[in-house]
Each structure stands twice: as structure tokens, then as C-alpha cells.
């Protein structure tokens, strides 16, 4: 049974290889190969899952050792997989949602002549992501870690002819690299501390070393997580990543890849448990990000960017939970899964809307679409209710638990974190309602005015196939696109309930993550009540602003905060001024230094020797008598020197 694990990774990898090397002759069937491979690995996942279920809780861990990868003296890195409750959860999420999105893409990318390549990249991503969650040591995890980075780079920049896309892709990779630095340093620290970096030994020996070392490792892991999961301060890439095709945004930048950071933290729980300071840092990052993302989400008019903000903020929730330690791990993962469902659904919905609207992304040019695309409206709506935590839907359970846990952290920290979480819930409700209203309700702002007005450039070139400046004719998307949306909607409706009733999910994961009930200052009921209140407030304000009053087709100037939020709270501008400009100056001056100083010294020496030569050459003036003089002088010196030698 263990041997299946490798197949999980192998299937999509094979798919990627075939699709990318296959050449044009595969264009016709390429996308179906992609779908086949992803669903194949989903099937394997299910089989393995069933196998695990068969075992009793303690022995639900499958290991597969393939071969010794980098054997050097003390440094032994193997290619080995570990399939336990945690990883299998991810496997199912990744392959499941992945397969759905593959299916969706078949329809969505229909008109793109490079569709084969697109599916190749998607498969590559699946393979890397599975490698990430299945790896049995940090170095192998690192491979998956960068692998998904590469896939996301390729997919964000899929439409490379658009400078914006290429830039966004590059930015994403670079920011992630900064995070990867953290991961590699963490691995080095582990190696020096434990002499290994395999999960088993490292996590079981955390007791034997100093807290300082563990804190260092923890912080480095956190840095890595920030990069991958778009947490402050490394969140800036996620917004731009929306340049990629929408299915990519749904799969990579909502459901799976961006949650890798959470996986890393939960997986390394043992380290964080032993390093409270690192944990605190994690919670802080989480709390800050969940507010940051939420605020950004409120101000964006680009539907995908708005959703991106919300992704950021939701992952903030997860990280926050993961930072709370054993209290939160389970709920972090649980929220991760439910979020996977409804956020993916939302993105697909957004994609479907754009598909029907000539790839218009500016919500101010939407409105009243519910009549035209009912399925999209319903699925999107369900996703909406799920994310704001409408009672009974999945978001409600998972998010509520996290808020509880935050309070349960105890002490002032607990209060602060809890309040942040609550606040976040309120803002979430606000911006999601805003999206909902602007898109599906209100008057139809897209009537009698061409889309793709200069200030809202299109994200998708598929427009080239529809008329450029024609008035859009909203229409429902084809089945191949709607079916995945429906499935995901179902998931986002019932997922939470399914997990929480009888704490199924808790008991499932406990053996891996461990669990402890914190002593919450507030009763669970109180928290839920508070959440409900926040929710209502958020929705209310949104209704007041966008439901009752008509939405202006051109964004109003807005308050200072709004304008800041539109620009990702100026964080990008900071990067630009400090890093980009500064870097440019640095490199330019270094180039100058290399040319004038380092090279100059050498050339200078050469030149000076040449000059000396020129001057000495003048002595050779062609007059025999002056030669005689030099001989005479030389003789004199020779004699004098000889005598002198004797004298001294």
C-alpha cells in the first residue's frame, strides 16, 4: 500500500512531462490528459485515505523510502514519503479541488492556443504540491516548496506577452525566494542542531536542545511561511498574482499553495510548542495579516483582487490559529480545508462572471447579473455565505473555532488576538457583501457602455476572441465550468458541519498535531454571539453603502484609508522606493566601481608602466657620447659600490 504514495506524485509529474515535451501533436487531447492525471492521483489519494481509515488512530502513518538522495558524510538526505492524517488531508484537498479546477479549465481555457502547456503547468503544480505535503524531511519538502513556486511563476506569467503578467510572476518568485531563504536557513540550523532534518528525529528531539535554537528555527520557518502564504510582510505578491488565469488563482492562490505555510507551521508544531516566542510571532503575523488583507479587500474594485485580499485575510486566520499551538492546529487545518472549498468556489464564480462579461474584472462595471447567470449566482452566493460564517455553513464552524481559540490563548494576548479575529470577521462580512452586491445586484452598469475602459485594463486575453469594444452579453458558462462550481458549493455548505459534528476532524488529526483545550475567558456561546453581531454589522454597513445607494461606475476618490487600501496600504510603494530603486542604485554604482576601481587599478598599473617605459626610452637619444657617459657613470658606480661593499 505504501508504494501507492509515490504514484500520487508520479501521476501528475508524468502528465506534466508528457504535456510539456509532447509538442503540438498533443494539443487536441492535452487538456484531457491533464484532467486524467490529476483525477488519477485523486483516486490514489482516496484509496490511501480508505486504507488509513482502516487502521486504528495510532498507526495511521505510511512511510515510503525511495532512494538515498544526497549522501555526504553526516548529511543524509533521502527521497522518502510520509503519509499520515495531516498529509492525507492535504492530498485529498489538493487532488480533489485540483481535479475540479482542471475540469473547469478545460472550458475556461478553451480559446487559448497554449492550453496544452497550461495543463502541463497545472500538473506540474499538483506534483510539486503533493511532494511538499508528502515529503518526510525538510529538504525534500523544500524541493516541493520551490516546485510550487516555480509552477506558480509559470502560471501567473502564463500570458507572458503581457508585461504586467511577466512582472507579477517575477515578483511572486522573488518574494517567495526571500521566504525560501528562511526555510533553507532553518534546515541548516536543524542540521547543525540535530545532525539531520528528517521529520521524525527532529520533531521527537526538540526537548534536547536549547529554546534559543528552536526559536531561531521557528522564526526562520515563519519567514518561509510568510513568503509562501502571503503573510505580512511578504504578502505583496498575492495581489499581482491575480494576473494569472482565474483557475490558477482559484487553485494555487486560494485553495492550496498559499496554505503551504500553514502546513509547514502545523507540521513543525513540536518546534513551535517548545519555542513560545516564535509562536507569539506567528500569532502576531496572523492577526496583522487577517486585518491587513481584510482592509485591502474592502477597497478593491477588481473582483479578483478583492478576493485575493480576502484570501490573505483568511490565511491570516489560519496562521493565527496555528500560532496558538495545540489549541489551534486542528482548526487551522479545518479552516484551511473549508476555505479551500468556498474560496475556490468564489474564484471559479468570479471567473465564470468574467467569462460572461468579456473578461471585465471591474465590479463597478457589473451589476444585476443574477438574472443572467443563475448558477454562478447561486454557487457564488453559497460561497459568500460560507466565507462570512453564516450559521450552519462551513465557514461558520471553522472560523468560529479559531476565534474561540484566540480568546482561549488567555491573558491580554488572548483578548487582543480574539478582538482582532472578531474585527476581521466583521470586515470580512463587509467586503464580501460588497462584492456580492456590486456584482449580482443593483442596476446593470455594464449596459450601453463598452467594457475594457482604459482605467480598468482587462486581465484576460481571451477577450481577443470576443469583440474588443462590444457591449457585453452576460451569459451562463458551459457545464464543464459550472459543475465544478456546484461541487465546490456543496463542499462549502456542508463541509464545516461534516467536520465539526462530533469533532470528527479533531479526532482525525489529533494524533499528529495533538490538541489541548485552552481555558477561554468567554463561553463558546458568547464568542459565537459576538461573531454573529460583527457579521450583522459588517453586512449592514455594506448594504447601507452599496445596496441602497447606486454604485458609481467610476470609483469615487474616497477617504485617505480607502486610497491607501487600494494601493495595498502603500506596502508596494515602500518596496518600490526602498528595494527596487535602492537596488538599482546599488547595482549601478557597483558596475561603476567594478569598471573604474577594480579594473582601473589594473589598467592603471599597466598604464603607469607604459609611461615609465616612455620616459626611460627618452634616455636612448642616439648620441654616442651620452651612451659613453652612461657607461662611464656606470663604471664609476660599479667601482664605488665595490669599494663600498668592502668598506662596510
Amino acid at each position, binding site marked *: 500500500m505504501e508504494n501507492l504514495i509515490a504514484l500520487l506524485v508520479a501521476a501528475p509529474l508524468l502528465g506534466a512531462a508528457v504535456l510539456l515535451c509532447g509538442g503540438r501533436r498533443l494539443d487536441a487531447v492535452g487538456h484531457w490528459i491533464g484532467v486524467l492525471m490529476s483525477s488519477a492521483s485523486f483516486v490514489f489519494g482516496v484509496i490511501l485515505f480508505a486504507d488509513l481509515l482502516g487502521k486504528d488512530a495510532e498507526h495511521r502513518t505510511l512511510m515510503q523510502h525511495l532512494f538515498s538522495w544526497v549522501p555526504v558524510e553526516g548529511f543524509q538526505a533521502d527521497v522518502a514519503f510520509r503519509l499520515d492524517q495531516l498529509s492525507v488531508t492535504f492530498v485529498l484537498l489538493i487532488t480533489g479541488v485540483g481535479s475540479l479546477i482542471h475540469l473547469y479549465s478545460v472550458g475556461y481555457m478553451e480559446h487559448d492556443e497554449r492550453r496544452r502547456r497550461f495543463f502541463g503547468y497545472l500538473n506540474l503544480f499538483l506534483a510539486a504540491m503533493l511532494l511538499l505535503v508528502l515529503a518526510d524531511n525538510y529538504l525534500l519538502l523544500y524541493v516541493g516548496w520551490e516546485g510550487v513556486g516555480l509552477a506558480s511563476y509559470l502560471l501567473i506569467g502564463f500570458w507572458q506577452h503581457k508585461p504586467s503578467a511577466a512582472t507579477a510572476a517575477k515578483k511572486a518568485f522573488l518574494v517567495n525566494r526571500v521566504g525560501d531563504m528562511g526555510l533553507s536557513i532553518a534546515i541548516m540550523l536543524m542540521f547543525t542542531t540535530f545532525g539531520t532534518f528528517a521529520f521524525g528525529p527532529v520533531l521527537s528531539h526538540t526537548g534536547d536542545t536549547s529554546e534559543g535554537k528552536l526559536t531561531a528555527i521557528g522564526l526562520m520557518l515563519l519567514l518561509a511561511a510568510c513568503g509562501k502564504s502571503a503573510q505580512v510582510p511578504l504578502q505583496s505578491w498575492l495581489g499581482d498574482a491575480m494576473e494569472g488565469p482565474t483557475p490558477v488563482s482559484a487553485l494555487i492562490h486560494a485553495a492550496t499553495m498559499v496554505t503551504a505555510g500553514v502546513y509547514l507551521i502545523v507540521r513543525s508544531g513540536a518546534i513551535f510548542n517548545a519555542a513560545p516566542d516564535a509562536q507569539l510571532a506567528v500569532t502576531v503575523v496572523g492577526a496583522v495579516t487577517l486585518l491587513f488583507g481584510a482592509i485591502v479587500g474592502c477597497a478593491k474594485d477588481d473582483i479578483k483582487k478583492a478576493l485575493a485580499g480576502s484570501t490573505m485575510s483568511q490565511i491570516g486566520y489560519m496562521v493565527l490559529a496555528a500560532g496558538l499551538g495545540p489549541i489551534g492546529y486542528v482548526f487551522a487545518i479545518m479552516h484551511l480545508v473549508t476555505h479551500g472549498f468556498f474560496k475556490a468556489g468564489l474564484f471559479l464564480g468570479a471567473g465564470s462572471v468574467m467569462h460572461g462579461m468579456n473578461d471585465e474584472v471591474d465590479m463597478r462595471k457589473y451589476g444585476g447579473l443574477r438574472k443572467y447567470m443563475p448558477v454562478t449566482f447561486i454557487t457564488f452566493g453559497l460561497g459568500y455565505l460560507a466565507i462570512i460564517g453564516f450559521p450552519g455553513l462551513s465557514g461558520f464552524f471553522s472560523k468560529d473555532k479559531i476565534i474561540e481559540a484566540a480568546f482561549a490563548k488567555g491573558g491580554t494576548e488572548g483578548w487582543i488576538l480574539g478582538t482582532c479575529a472578531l474585527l476581521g470577521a466583521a470586515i470580512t462580512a463587509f467586503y464580501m457583501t460588497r462584492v456580492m452586491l456590486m456584482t449580482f445586484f443593483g442596476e446593470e452598469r455594464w449596459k450601453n457602455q463598452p467594457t475594457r475602459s482604459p482605467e480598468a485594463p482587462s486581465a484576460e486575453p481571451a477577450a481577443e476572441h470576443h469583440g474588443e469594444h462590444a457591449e457585453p452579453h452576460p451569459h451562463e458558462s458551459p457545464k464543464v465550468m459550472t459543475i465544478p462550481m456546484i461541487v465546490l458549493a456543496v463542499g462549502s455548505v456542508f463541509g464545516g458541519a461534516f467536520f465539526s459534528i462530533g469533532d470528527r476532524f479533531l479526532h482525525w488529526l489529533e494524533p499528529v498535531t495533538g490538541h489541548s483545550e485552552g481555558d477561554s475567558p468567554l463561553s463558546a456561546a458568547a464568542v459565537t454571539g459576538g461573531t454573529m453581531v460583527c457579521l450583522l454589522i459588517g453586512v449592514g454597513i455594506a448594504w447601507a453603502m452599496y445596496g441602497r445607494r447606486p454604485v458609481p461606475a467610476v470609483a469615487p476618490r474616497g477617504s485617505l484609508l480607502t486610497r491607501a487600501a487600494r494601493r495595498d496600504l502603500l506596502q508596494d510603494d515602500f518596496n518600490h522606493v526602498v528595494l527596487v530603486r535602492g537596488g538599482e542604485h546599488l547595482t549601478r554604482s557597483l558596475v561603476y566601481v567594478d569598471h573604474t576601481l577594480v579594473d582601473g587599478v589594473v589598467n592603471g598599473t599597466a598604464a603607469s608602466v607604459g609611461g615609465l617605459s616612455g620616459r626611460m626610452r*627618452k634616455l636612448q*637619444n*642616439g*648620441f*654616442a*657620447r651620452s651612451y*659613453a*657617459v652612461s657607461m*662611464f657613470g656606470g663604471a664609476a658606480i660599479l667601482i664605488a659600490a665595490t669599494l663600498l661593499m668592502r668598506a662596510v
Partner: protein
Amino acid sequence: MNPVNYLYLSALLFTIGATGVLIRRNAIVVFMCIELMLNACNLAFVTFSRMHGNLDGQIIAFFTMVVAAAEVVVGLAIIVSLFRSRHSASVDDASLMKL
């Protein structure tokens, strides 16, 4: 008379000759100065031979004369040909090659 004085004389002659080489322009004169130096050498040889009481120095003096004579032959030949082609025996005019 103390033979050492002859040595001083020869040294003096040698120096005069050398100086002549350095300051005179006419090749012939320069050459004569060189001959003078050789003669100074001869004087020294003879003197030393006297002091040591062996004849080597005097023999050498003969040899030197022979050599000097040969030198004159060659030297004059060269200088004359130079003079004929340039109509000047000045060593300073002969400075085509420099630097």
C-alpha cells in the same frame, strides 16, 4: 724616483682620455682619446712590471700596442666610410637611430 708616481700619471692620462671621449665631438678625436687611454694602460703595465720585477707587464704592453694598431685600422676604416657618406666626422650627427 718612486715608481708609484708613474701610476698616478697613468691614472691621470686615463682620466683625460675618458673625459675626452665624453666631451669631444669629432670621431677622430674621440678615437685618439681612446688611444690615449690605452697608452695610459701601457704605462701602468710597464710600471707594475718594474715594481714586481717581472717582465709580464712589458710583454703585455707590446701586445696592447699590436691590438691598438689593429683597432686603428678597423676604426679608421669605419670612421672614414662614415665621413665619406656624411661629409662629417661628428659623432653627434650620427644619431639616426634613437628611442
